[in-house]
């Protein structure tokens, strides 16, 4: 084999460069997002329950919100009848943020982890987070 020295060195270098991200991150486990549910309103709830089950909200909140926005803006429908038969105003500001007033902890953690940038906040007004809460 001609030039075997150069070829093997080249291959080793190439493999090293290609796998560099793995070397850099070795031993550093990505911190799993752990959205905080600790807000003044949630703290006062006797039974901590969202408008639908926790798993449903984790899996489907984006689709639910999308359906809400079309219903409110395009079909003059403003109220959601939940599976438990409760009624909710379909509004980020009035309903979701009423409890989840900690956008940085509750929304951003997972969105950053999953590398998605929802642009809700360009128009919808973020809840004012309490300084006393340790958020912010």
């Amino acid at each position, binding site marked *: 084999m001609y030039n075997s020295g150069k070829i093997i060195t080249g291959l080793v270098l190439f493999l090293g460069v290609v796998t560099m991200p793995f070397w850099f991150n070795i031993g550093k486990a990505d911190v799993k997002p752990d959205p905080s549910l600790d807000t003044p309103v949630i703290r006062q709830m*006797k039974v901590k*329950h969202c408008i639908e089950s926790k798993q449903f909200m984790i899996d489907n909140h984006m689709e639910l919100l999308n359906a809400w926005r079309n219903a409110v803006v395009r079909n003059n429908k*403003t*109220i959601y009848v939940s599976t438990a038969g409760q009624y909710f105003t379909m509004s980020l500001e009035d309903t979701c943020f009423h409890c989840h007033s900690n956008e940085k902890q509750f929304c951003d953690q997972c969105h950053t982890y999953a590398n998605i940038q929802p642009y809700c906040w360009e128009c919808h007004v973020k809840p004012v987070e309490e300084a006393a809460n340790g958020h912010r």
Partner: protein
Amino acid sequence: MDIDKRKFLKLVGVSGALWVGSRLAGGLSSVFNIRDRFDKQALADAGYEVGTMVPDPGELKAKQWAMAIDVRQFKTPEDYTRCIQACDKIHNIPDITTQQDIKWIWEEPYSAAFPEQHNQYMEAALKSTPILLLCNQCEFPPCVRVCPTGATFKRQDGIVMMDYHRCIGCRYCMAACPYGSRSFNFKDPRPYIKKIDPAYPTRTKGVVEKCDFCAERLDQGLMPACVEASKGALIFGDLRDPDSDVRKVLSTNFSIRRKPELGTQPNVFYIL
């Protein structure tokens, strides 16, 4: 104790479910003290299916909303600013002092509001009276015809509505509107809003906006903000209902509309 495994498991299951059920029923109703403005009893009576999206039972309905502006009642500058500020405040409208200003409801001299009816020798009082202008919620709106994304559309009740989520900022609607009722966000409006009302979204750079007859308030059973603030100078109602307030003032007073010859059928009337 002669209870077998099967019976025991059943018992545990049933009592567990009962406990969770009672906690949920008690818990849910008492913890959500959200600003719910709707009538819960009316909703319960309607017997809607769960998992559905439904209108507010108190919503105001019409076949075609319309407004009459009684220009005679606007005497002092306060009469105008009252209406304009009511709108600006609840809709988070920025105050930009350049030509890039955002207008939902604003004032212009008579000659600008009705250019084709401006006579050289006209009543002095009228000549100097500013006129309140807003989107005419046209019956045949050219802005809706040209919008490529359906961001601007006509609701069942005649309101020409904006869905800012879908606006791509092409500004075709601005070119199509013969009344200059639409404004474009050349920049982020937030720094120019005096006090942001968190109950209503702001807009963002690159979308077009305009008056929507307070659609969000009508859907909750409230009259438009400017109408409420006007102390009777703005009359609002269903144009298709002969007994409505608008129809009553229109049938007893002389009124004009802006550029009726274009065939857009404006739904804002001016009583002079």
